[in-house]
């Protein structure tokens, strides 16, 4: 089966989630990947949305983090203060699954402004739940399309500063080595030079660089059923 680079990215992200763990899910790419994991190898993955839905089991992908289907299928539905204070903050959630508008070699994220804060070139949406998701979860994974604009040499604003263990992109996977994210994995058919070209800092390549297993037909079928 043929597949897109976005599909490869989502499949790679889904695979990073272990069954039986809990995942605090951001909307967009992270939500797609987390739901794919639940639909494939991790049926007992606990999906937690900041709208207060714990253990949501949507059959179709939600468009927002507060869709009715998340509430209807949740094991437990709590208030927004409670989801942040009782569930996220104490560090009881295994993985935070986040997107990013801009990030740097340390895995810090900017979703606030491009340009000067007081007089921005582009005003982005802002922090949302990310600063605390990035620091409170036991592990953090970022899912984002790789480009020079997104993978920036310098952030105009630090919105979230966690210690992600992985950045999963449409080109490959980056992991931290000596305090800096380096390319450790490329997806099938992607050249290392493409990843370097799509990175705003001089991207180092790990000596043990590997190639991602391509999506299996069953992964692709499950993904297309979710998004279709």
């Amino acid at each position, binding site marked *: 089966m043929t597949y897109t680079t976005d599909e490869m990215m989502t499949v790679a992200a889904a695979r990073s989630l272990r069954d039986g763990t809990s995942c605090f899910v951001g*909307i*967009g790419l992270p939500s797609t990947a987390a739901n794919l994991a639940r639909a494939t190898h991790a049926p007992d993955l606990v999906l937690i949305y*900041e*709208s*207060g*839905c714990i253990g949501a089991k949507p059959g179709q992908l939600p*468009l*927002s*983090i*507060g*869709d*009715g289907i*998340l*509430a209807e299928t949740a094991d437990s*539905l709590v*208030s*927004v*203060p409670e989801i*942040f*204070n009782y569930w*996220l*903050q104490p560090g009881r959630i295994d993985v935070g699954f986040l997107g990013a508008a801009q990030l740097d070699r340390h895995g*810090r994220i900017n979703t*606030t402004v491009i340009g000067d*804060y007081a007089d*921005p*070139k*582009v*005003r*982005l*949406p*802002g*922090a*949302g*739940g*990310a*600063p*605390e998701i990035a*620091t*409170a979860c036991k592990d953090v994974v970022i899912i984002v399309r790789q480009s020079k604009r997104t993978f920036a040499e310098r952030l105009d*604003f*630090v*919105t*979230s*500063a*966690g210690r992600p263990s992985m950045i999963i992109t449409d080109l490959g996977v980056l992991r931290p080595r000596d305090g800096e994210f380096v390319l450790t994995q490329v997806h099938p058919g992607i050249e290392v030079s493409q990843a370097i070209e799509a990175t705003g800092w001089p991207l180092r390549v790990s000596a043990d660089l590997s190639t991602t297993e391509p999506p299996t037909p069953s992964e692709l079928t499950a993904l297309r059923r979710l998004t279709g």
Partner: protein
Amino acid sequence: MARIASLAEAVGELVHDGDQVALEGFTHLIPFAAGHEIIRQGRTDLTLVRMTPDLIYDQLIGAGCARKLIFSWGGNPGVGSLHRFRDAVQHSWPVPLEIEEHSHAGMANRYVAGASGLPFAVLRGYTGTDLPKQTDTIKPVSCPFTGEVLTAVPALNPDVTIVHAQRADRKGNVQLWGITGVQKEAVLAAKRSLVTVEEIVDELEPRPNAVTLPGWVVTMVAEVPQGAHPSYAHDYYVRDNEFYKQWDAISRDRDSFGQWLAEIR
């Protein structure tokens, strides 16, 4: 006991120029009809408070009702940017917009402190971010027992909070269910409150996952069917995702937004 009134009457009586106003609802039950009524009544100089400004504040900001925005995430969920919000921040159109920016955890805790009659709340938040450099309502606080340094945020106590709910009874007891977000805290934190509801009924039967606000902590209730459209009301109607997408085009330039505004007014 809450007073039952028309939407126009309630907004006229409770929302004044210059007020700090919170319209809450986390994706679900966003009080759009009340927002439109504020636009219709031409309120200005408002300090708008809301975790996720969403389309509702894009509309109020574009209409020139707001002087300041206190928020944590200002996007069109699943679609993209809020163009009127951007235009106000980037080009001061139609009027300059001051911003006070937090994280969701910070905003939620500010409402909790407000509802609890405390001047501040404590959280583990904003670690390593640039937000405290720009937002002076984020400060360190030390634990008196362990010495650990945590983050403090001040209480939010809006002049008026407006939320939308599924039902009220004739005494103004209010019931909402599904995703209930931060609405209880926002109402309890406010000096005055207005709840718009899908319907007023004789009896509120108990329901799973329902929040009930007794009528004596609500100032006014107005029956406004479809009052949360284009967001949704669990068990009444679904989210109008198409309108959320259309808003991107409507709001993108000042003229098409002006046309939308003329129709609302």
